[in-house]
């Protein structure tokens, strides 16, 4: 856990509402120096605690399909499977999990046909994949998109 103070949180709140705000504008609104804003953000970015980027609505871009893929992968190929799946186009989530399956993948695609093709070609046929269950997502009444995992590399 990375400790943040009140100043950090106020900077982050402004950028959550509008990631395009300049450091100067953030500084002006909080009545602190631009240097403070720059330093605080650099510290948090260097610690991989935050990222500022564009989030898009998939529908206007023609991305209409999303699914979960539940997998049983041979433990000896698990690490390479996780690495490979995270490189597959459209994949947004990859983790090893507890329970009946041992890998969970989520992905988006233009349509269900493309989705099935991607899963068939890049995921189901990967070495060591013993079982695959594809679950299509219809709609998402909640998506807290401000929480992600920021890659350390």
């Amino acid at each position, binding site marked *: 856990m990375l400790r943040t103070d009140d100043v950090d949180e106020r900077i982050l709140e402004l950028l959550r509402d509008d990631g*395009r705000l300049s450091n100067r504008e953030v500084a002006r609104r909080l009545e602190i120096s631009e240097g403070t804003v720059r330093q605080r953000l650099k510290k948090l970015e260097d610690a991989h605690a935050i990222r500022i980027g564009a989030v898009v609505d*998939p529908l206007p871009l023609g991305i209409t399909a999303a699914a979960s893929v539940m997998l049983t992968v041979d433990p000896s190929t698990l690490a390479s499977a996780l690495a490979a799946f995270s490189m597959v186009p459209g994949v947004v989530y990859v*983790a090893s999990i507890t329970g009946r399956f041992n890998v969970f993948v989520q992905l988006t695609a233009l349509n269900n046909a493309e989705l099935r093709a991607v899963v068939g070609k890049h995921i189901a046929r990967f070495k060591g994949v013993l079982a695959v269950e594809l679950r299509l997502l219809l709609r*998402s009444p909640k998506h807290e998109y*401000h929480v992600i995992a920021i890659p350390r590399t």
Partner: protein
Amino acid sequence: MTKTPDEIDLRIIDALRQDGRTPNKTIAKMLNVSETTVASRIRALTERNIMQVTLQRDIYSLGYEFQGFLDVYVGNRDVDAVAADIVPIKGVLAVAIYLGSPDILVSFAACNREDLARIVNDEVAKVAGIQRVDSYLALEIRKFEAAHVALGVNRAAN
């Protein structure tokens, strides 16, 4: 104004997905358009809920110890009504409706074991109409992005 983003819009979106703080001037040079065009395109994409440049935080840095999922099987109740009751539960990151069974997927983050028990046993499992809940935890998260979001629905909800 057309509904579908054009080539310039898509290239602006691409640049801002890489780095949301890329200056308008830099994007303008990259695309060989004016800075005013870049600014007005970004404003239009944002106002139309096609894109939002925002701050995202790392789940581990926020102090969450567990991230996991719930497969929810609904009995004698409308699936959307059950999902709507799960949405406000603290720690729930995402709620999605599946085609077929299980009916609902819940993604959550918990600070510790007590928090995990609260979300799974005390709150989600007690929502009316739920027949069964299967829970599983992420062990090693290899990728966890939130690049595609129905902004119209979720900006208001967050």
